[in-house]
C-alpha cells in the first residue's frame, strides 16, 4: 500500500466515517427527550412541591455552570458561589431600587456576574489544580466578607430587605405555590442548557476538552489556552449569575448565604454526585441532593448533613463517574446482555 492509495481511500471514506462519527456524538438521544418531558411532571404529580422543584431547577442551572468549567475544562473551583451571589444581589438591588421586572433583571444580573467573572478569569487562567482551589476559595471568602461589611448596600448580615418581583411577562404573579417560579426556573434552565449543549459540541467545546485532557499540550498545537479559559469562565459566571438572580426573584429575598462557602461546596457536591463532564450530571445531582436534603431534614432536622456526607462517600466510592456514570454503565451492560441473548437465539 502506498501512502497515495491510502490517502485516496481516506478521501473516499472520510465523509461517511468521520463526519458521521462526530454527528453521532451530538445527536439528541431518546433518553434526553424523555428526561426533559419528565421535568414537567411536578406540575401534575407533585403540585405541593413546586417551590422545592423551582429551587432544584435553579441549583441545577448553577451546577450546569460549574460543569462547564470543572467538568469540561478541568478548572476546579471552590468559590463558584461568588458569581451566583453577584447575580443574586444585583437582581435584589435593582428590585429594591424600583425595577422588579424579572427578565431584564436576569439580563442585568448576568452581565454583572459576567463582568466579575471576566476580571477574575485573568487570574484563574494562569493557575491549575490545588492553587486554583485556594484562589477560588479565597476569592469567595473575600467577596462574602465584602458583602457583609457593605451593610449600607447589601443589608449585611440581615440580608437585603424590600425585594418585590413584578409578574412574569406582566401576567404571571410569583405565587406561594411556586407555579410561576417553577415554570420560570425550568424555562431558564432548559434554554441555557441548550446554549451549553451547543457550546460543548462546538469547535470551542472541543478545545475546552483539550484543555481538560492536557492543558500543557495545547500551546504546542497553537491553542491560546488562557484566552479559551477566560471565555468559558466568563460564560460560566454569567450562567451562575442568572441562577442567583432567579433565586432572588422567586424567593424575594437574598442574604449572605447566596455567596457563602457553603453554597460553593454544595454545588460541587451536586455536580460530583451526578457526574462531571456530562451536561446532565449537575441536573441529576441537584435533584438527588435537594430532594435528599428535603427528606433528611424532615427525618432529622439537626443532623441531616450526616446523611449527605454518607451519600457523597458512597457515590464516590462505588460510582466514580457519579450517578449518571453509573446509569450509563447499567444501560451499556443491559444493551450488551440484550445483544448477547439475541445473538444466542440466532445461531
Amino acid at each position: 500500500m502506498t501512502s497515495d492509495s491510502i490517502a485516496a481511500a481516506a478521501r473516499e471514506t472520510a465523509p461517511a466515517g468521520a463526519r458521521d462519527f462526530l454527528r453521532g456524538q451530538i445527536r439528541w438521544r431518546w433518553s434526553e427527550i424523555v428526561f426533559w418531558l419528565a421535568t414537567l411532571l411536578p406540575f401534575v404529580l407533585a403540585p405541593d412541591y413546586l417551590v422545592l422543584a423551582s429551587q432544584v431547577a435553579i441549583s441545577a442551572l448553577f451546577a450546569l455552570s460549574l460543569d462547564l468549567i470543572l467538568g469540561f475544562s478541568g478548572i476546579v473551583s471552590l468559590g463558584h458561589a461568588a458569581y451566583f451571589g453577584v447575580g443574586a444581589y444585583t437582581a435584589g438591588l435593582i428590585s429594591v431600587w424600583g425595577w422588579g421586572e424579572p427578565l431584564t433583571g436576569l439580563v442585568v444580573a448576568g452581565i454583572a456576574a459576567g463582568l466579575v467573572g471576566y476580571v477574575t478569569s485573568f487570574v484563574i487562567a494562569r493557575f491549575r489544580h490545588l492553587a486554583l482551589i485556594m484562589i477560588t476559595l479565597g476569592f469567595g471568602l473575600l467577596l462574602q466578607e465584602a458583602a457583609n461589611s457593605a451593610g449600607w448596600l447589601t443589608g449585611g448580615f440581615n440580608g437585603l430587605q424590600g425585594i418585590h418581583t413584578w409578574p412574569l411577562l406582566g401576567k404571571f404573579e410569583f405565587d406561594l405555590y411556586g407555579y410561576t417560579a417553577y415554570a420560570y426556573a425550568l424555562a431558564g434552565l432548559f434554554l441555557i442548557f441548550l446554549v451549553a449543549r451547543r457550546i460543548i459540541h462546538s469547535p470551542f467545546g472541543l478545545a475546552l476538552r483539550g484543555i481538560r485532557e492536557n492543558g500543557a499540550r495545547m500551546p504546542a498545537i497553537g491553542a491560546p489556552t488562557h484566552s479559551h479559559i477566560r471565555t468559558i469562565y466568563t460564560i460560566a459566571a454569567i450562567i451562575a449569575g442568572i441562577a442567583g438572580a432567579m433565586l432572588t426573584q422567586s424567593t424575594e429575598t437574598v442574604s449572605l448565604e447566596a455567596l457563602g462557602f457553603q453554597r460553593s461546596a454544595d454545588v460541587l457536591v451536586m455536580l460530583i454526585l451526578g457526574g462531571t463532564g456530562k451536561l446532565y450530571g449537575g441536573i441529576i445531582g441537584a435533584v438527588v441532593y435537594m430532594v435528599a436534603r428535603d427528606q433528611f431534614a424532615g427525618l432529622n432536622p439537626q443532623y441531616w448533613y450526616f446523611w449527605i456526607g454518607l451519600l457523597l462517600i458512597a457515590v464516590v466510592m462505588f460510582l466514580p463517574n457519579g450517578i449518571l456514570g453509573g446509569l450509563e454503565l447499567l444501560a451499556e451492560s443491559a444493551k450488551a446482555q440484550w445483544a448477547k441473548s439475541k445473538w444466542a437465539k440466532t445461531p
Partner: protein
Amino acid sequence: MGQVEMGQNAVSETITAGAGNADGSALSARGINKSFGSLVVAADVAINLPAGVRYALIGPNGAGKTTLINLLTGMLRPDAGRIFLGSDDITALPPEARVQRGLVRTYQINSLFPQLSALEAVTLAVCERRRIARTWWRPLTAYTEDIDEAHGILATLNLAAVCYRPTRELAYGQQRLLEIALALATRPKVLLLDEPAAGVPREESRDLFAAIAGLSRDITVLFIEHDMELVFRFASRILVLVGGRVLVEGTPAEIAADERVRAVYLGKEHGAPRHG
C-alpha cells in the same frame, strides 16, 4: 506556495541585514544560553536549519537536546540569545504564537489527549490552526472540510482505522504516530521531532522514519534520534551537542569522519557510522 513564501523571506532577509542567514534559512538561533542554577544546559549554542533540510540533533544523554527544542519552541526562555523563524525574530513570542507561525514540535514522551479520539484531537489541531476554535455558536460538524482534513492526515499515517477510538486505547506506536499527526495538522514550516521513535520497536521505527522522510520538502525537519543507522540514513545535516555546547556541525560524511565525535560520542558504538 511554500516556495513563494521562501522567496519573500529571502528578499526581506537582505533588507533586515543580519537577521537569520541569507541562504534561505528556515530556523536559526545564535548565542543561546540557558542555565538552571549552576547547571549549564545551553552554552552559546548556534544552529541554522536551511529550508527543506532533514537535520539530526545528536549527542549523549543529558547533552541538552530536548532543552534546545524547548528553547527554540518557547517552552523555555533563554537567558541570552536570539531565535529567528525565517527572517522574523521570534525570541519573545509565546509557544502558541510560534506554532501559529509554523514552528511546531512533538514530544519524546507521548503528550496526548487521553479521552479524545484521535479524530477529535487532530480536528482540534486543525481548528486551532484555522482560528475557528473560538467559535462556540456553531456545531463542530458544520466544519466538514476540517474534519475531512483531519481524517486525511490520520489516513496518511495509517491511523484511519483506529481514529474513532479514545487515544488512551491506542497502541504505543500508534500514539507516536498521533504525535506526528497533531504536529502536521498545524501545517508546520519547521517541525522539531523529539525522538519520534522513542520506545518503538526497531522494525516499526523504520516505518516511522519512512513516514517522516516522505513529508513534503516544504517542511524543514529537525529530529533527535539515538539510533545512528537511522540518523545517517535520513539526515542531510547533523549537529552534535555535548554538555550544552555545539561540538560540531556538518554533513553526515563530515560527522562520520570527525575524530572528536568518535571520541566523545560515536566511539562507544561499534563501527556506527558506516554510511556517509
